[in-house]
């Protein structure tokens, strides 16, 4: 060795592998406006489609008159349910086992429902055409309140289901009932409550909100009549699933369907399912023989494509008087709107809501979920969370605070007392999950020490005394949240989409010069896969991340995968990448052994190549092995260096975190200030700390928005009143608090690299932290639970109801 020989540290650093704060390679094009999004796709002769939508939440469609529209210059066709019936596409399956109207078939069931699809030579003409379509409606009584959906005299919404006593998930109790799902031991739980020393019960609502990605849902469909091939460019979080769905419902051979998801401007669950726009654009292309583009506007996105949440969770905890929890009972009323279009890749209609026991050692628990129809937009999707996990985390984290208040205990203390202990992992929860790993006490104590939790509580006590003396009109709240996520959908024993197991995949091809391409079944919508996937490969096989190109989103070239949502990419595809890379490495080791003339067992991997044990100068770099793979492989071995892995995870992963929100509220206006927000995340092995930090910032900003005002609201007669960013709270940089991030590392024992996933943790854990802060602020005035969202006027109303404002 001489001075020019790189050190081990230098060689490692050159790879920019796992643990490196590698800058996002995709940002080079994004920050220069050079991304290629669906709306950038412009094909020769392309037409534009747009929807006539219902002004009524519930009405019979008497007549659709398109004669004037067809006379509008540029309008070529008006597609209705009657048109779609000729190709058997008036209805489509949802991911939750229900069916959904593509275009209004006899009735409309929510305001802004798609009624007709106008196809024209440009968007202006399409919109002119929409305004010329005359639809005659007969209004019907709307059903808005989910708590009234199963009343005897409730209007029946789904006439297609009348008389069907069984749905996709078992018996139905009412024409507006979708499913009932129960988990846990009812008898044991009832017994725990019967002998409980202390009990709490609260109806905790998680209001209706929306993922609202920057880019709305859109597609370009192009049908080639000669080849009989359909190409679809779309904002798809799961392109292969879309291809299969299209093959199944359009009866096209799957090899003749090409689905391409180009750059995507955010998904957050909004782009998992199939929407009427996709079907209509495809049919329009088949009918006209021209490519057809459909681009949703913001109002359509907020009011028609899938919402999230609308879960109403009656929650009870049984405990001893010294604060040990002994039982949990939860009943959920789930409002799915007009169709159960919940993106639900599990075998259960309420996803993973049975993670509701959270981070606590509940000896017994029982859960029942009733899904119902209302005259609202269909859904609900998992808005930056694993399926129904954020609802569950909010439910248990609010309930633990309510219990702490009842016991007059500090909420952090109560949590510490009830945490699953490190030695209990793998931990079997009362509702059936096997938690892989965790060290909750360490994370909680680190949060408390770093934030000066005890001092903050002291300050709060002083401020409360000052408030009582009339010296201040500001109250202070501390919001503690300790969440356990369940992500990485998922093991084939638990998870499937339309019967397809939820594995994921990676194909790696190494080129002769020591570069390579990795193709994935996942699809980044901003997560930075092009950066992080290459980092995993870099560490696994010793080729610099810069030399690995990552490609996703084209179903013709990518191996079949189930897409990106539910924080599943790292737990599932991340594992597939590692496994494929290890196959490459195993073959490389055989090639190196042949070239170095030793037995392969005599080789050890050393950062970026193989070295002969005990003979440090005998080394062959991975770069050289790549070259050798194309010209001098051992006799009998096939040339080339590539591998594919399809990974079916043995278990879910369970990221967790400890969050604290410090908030001050002016009772005279309800205006709040987030003084401080601390987020400690444990996502196991950390692939790129900078990307994790970015994910946490983004997720916390969404959590802040949801808890503090973001709401899809309907008035009493079913009009959606939050159809734009004027009233749907989308915080800007000005409103967004400063985020402090921190971490512990508890690797997943069953994941090849120990990673757990992080994208959704901050949304899941952030919402209860904000809500607990507001509730904690008001608790000394006598409140137990104030529903979200906590916008200014509702905070003021809480203060007024509690007698703090005259």
């Amino acid at each position: 060795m001489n001075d020019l020989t790189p050190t081990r540290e230098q060689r490692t650093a050159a790879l920019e592998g796992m643990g490196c704060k590698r800058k996002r390679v995709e940002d080079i094009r994004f920050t220069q406006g050079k991304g290629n999004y669906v709306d950038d796709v412009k094909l020769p002769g392309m037409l534009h489609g747009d929807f006539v939508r219902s002004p009524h939440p519930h009405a019979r469609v008497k007549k659709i008159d398109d004669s004037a529209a067809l006379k509008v210059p540029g309008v070529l066709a008006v597609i209705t349910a009657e048109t779609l019936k000729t190709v058997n596409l008036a209805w489509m399956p949802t991911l939750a086992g229900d069916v959904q109207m593509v275009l209004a078939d006899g009735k409309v069931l929510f305001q802004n429902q798609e009624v007709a699809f106008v196809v024209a030579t440009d968007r202006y003409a399409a919109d002119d055409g929409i305004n010329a379509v005359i639809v005659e409606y007969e209004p019907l009584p709307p059903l808005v309140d989910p708590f009234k959906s199963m009343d005897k005299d409730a209007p029946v919404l789904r006439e297609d289901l009348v008389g069907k006593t069984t749905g996709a998930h078992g018996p139905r109790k009412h024409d507006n009932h979708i499913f009932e799902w129960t988990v846990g031991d009812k008898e044991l739980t009832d017994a725990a409550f019967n002998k409980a020393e202390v009990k709490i019960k609260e109806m905790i609502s998680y209001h209706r909100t929306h993922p609202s990605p920057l880019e709305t849902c859109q597609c370009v469909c192009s049908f080639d009549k000669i080849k009989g091939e359909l190409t679809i460019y779309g904002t798809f979080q799961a392109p292969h699933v879309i291809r299969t769905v299209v093959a199944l419902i359009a009866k096209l051979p799957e090899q003749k369907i090409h689905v391409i998801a180009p750059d995507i401007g955010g998904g957050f669950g909004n782009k998992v399912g199939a929407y009427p726009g996709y079907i209509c654009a495809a049919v329009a292309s088949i009918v006209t023989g021209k490519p057809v583009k459909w681009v949703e506007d913001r109002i359509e996105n907020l009011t028609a494509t899938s919402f999230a949440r609308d879960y109403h969770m009656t929650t009870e905890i049984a405990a001893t008087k010294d604060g040990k929890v002994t039982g949990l009972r939860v009943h959920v009323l789930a409002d799915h709107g007009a169709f159960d279009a919940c993106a639900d890749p599990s075998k259960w209609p309420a996803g993973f809501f049975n993670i509701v026991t959270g981070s606590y050692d509940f000896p017994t628990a029982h859960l029942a979920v009733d899904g119902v129809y209302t005259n609202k937009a269909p859904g609900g999707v998992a808005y930056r969370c694993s399926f129904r996990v954020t609802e569950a985390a909010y439910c248990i984290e609010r309930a633990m605070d309510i219990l702490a208040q009842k016991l007059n205990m500090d909420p952090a203390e109560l949590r510490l007392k009830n945490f699953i202990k490190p030695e209990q992992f793998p931990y079997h929860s009362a509702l059936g999950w096997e938690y892989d790993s965790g060290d909750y006490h360490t994370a909680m104590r680190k949060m408390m020490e770093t934030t000066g939790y005890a001092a903050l509580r002291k300050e709060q006590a002083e401020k409360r005394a000052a408030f009582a003396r009339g010296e201040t009109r500001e109250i202070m709240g501390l919001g503690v949240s300790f969440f356990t996520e369940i992500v990485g959908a998922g093991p084939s024993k638990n998870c499937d989409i339309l019967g397809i197991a939820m594995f994921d995949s990676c194909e790696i091809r190494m080129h002769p010069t020591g570069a390579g391409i990795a193709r994935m079944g996942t699809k980044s919508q901003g997560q930075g896969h092009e950066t992080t996937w290459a980092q995993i490969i870099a560490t696994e096989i010793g080729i610099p991340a810069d030399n690995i190109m990552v490609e996703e989103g084209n179903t013709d070239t990518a191996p079949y995968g189930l897409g990106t949502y539910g924080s599943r990419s790292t737990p599932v595809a991340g594992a597939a990448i590692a496994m494929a890379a290890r196959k490459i490495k195993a073959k490389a080791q055989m090639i190196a052994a042949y070239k170095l003339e030793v037995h392969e067992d005599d080789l050890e991997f050393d950062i970026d190549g193989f070295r002969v044990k005990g003979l440090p100068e005998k080394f062959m770099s991975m770069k050289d092995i790549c070259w050798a793979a194309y010209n001098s492989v051992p006799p009998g071995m096939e040339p080339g260096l590539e591998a594919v892995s399809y990974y079916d995870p043995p278990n879910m992963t369970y990221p967790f975190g400890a969050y604290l929100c410090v908030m001050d509220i002016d009772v005279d206006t309800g205006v709040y200030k987030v003084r401080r927000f601390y987020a400690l995340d444990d996502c196991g092995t950390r692939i790129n700390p900078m990307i994790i930090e970015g994910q946490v910032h983004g997720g916390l900003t969404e959590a802040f928005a949801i808890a503090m005002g973001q709401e899809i609201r309907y008035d009493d007669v079913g009009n959606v009143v939050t159809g734009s960013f004027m009233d749907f709270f989308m915080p800007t940089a000005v409103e967004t608090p400063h985020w402090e991030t921190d971490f512990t590392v508890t690797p997943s024992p069953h994941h090849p690299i120990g990673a757990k996933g992080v994208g959704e943790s901050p949304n899941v854990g952030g919402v209860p932290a904000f809500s607990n802060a507001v509730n904690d602020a008001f608790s000394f005035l006598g409140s137990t639970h104030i529903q979200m969202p906590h916008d200014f006027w509702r905070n003021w109303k809480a203060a007024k109801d509690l007698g703090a404002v005259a």
Partner: protein
Amino acid sequence: MIPGSFSYHRPASVADAVKLLSDLGEDARPLAGGHSLVPMMKLRLATPAHLIDLHGIAALKGIRRDGQNLVIGAMTTQHELLASDDVARSMPILHEAALLIADPQVRYRGTIGGNVANGDPGNDMPALMMTLGATYRLEGPGGSRDVAATDFYQGAYFTALEPGEILTSVSVPVPAAGHGYAYEKLKRKVGDYATAAAAVVLTMAGGKVATCSIGLTNVHETPLLAADAAKAVIGTSLDAATLKKVAAAAEAIMAPAADARGPVEYRKHVGGVMVTRALQRAASVAK
């Protein structure tokens, strides 16, 4: 979110613009910054057949002194208001309020003329103009006339503008040296209209309020001048009892609509709070 078709006109003089407006009648709308009109057109709630863009008229631009008044051309943008030293020095409340209008992108485009002429009760400048005693110059087919801001607003989106008339400038009397001022605006986020806002301009003498004017934004179908409330503070040192009385007097004339910003009761209550806070802050900066 796609507008219908329309013809576009870009006159070079006020006379040409007035003539176009008169000739084309109700199908024509003048276009200033477009922040209200263009979204309405995209929603097809407004479907003018003709847009008369005022950006080509140089005479509508600029800020100049005219004796004790500051005369601001209607097409002066909020950004230009903010960039004006004269405004910042002589009329700091205008600077403060302009900064609370949306965000820099909006302020680069949004104009004072559009803001005051549209009759939108959510706009910030109308109440401020009433508080400052401003006058609007209107030019129409029959010549020009001046209308006091306090006489201009008749209802939501209804103003004293007659068919064919354009608001060409705003003349604002410069407040007395040493005056106190404040514009207190409660809004949910950047870019939002006020849940309630109050403008106060006052002078102090010997620790007591000598003169006072109070304007209110977005708590009624028109901007309001809270005359009774303003009268109630004269001669007082803004003690707690007075502030309570003043807030009540201001709330008495408010009639906001319930919306996503909150119910009527809340919007009136915070309207009173904004008045109280604006008075206190104005008094604290008065010399």
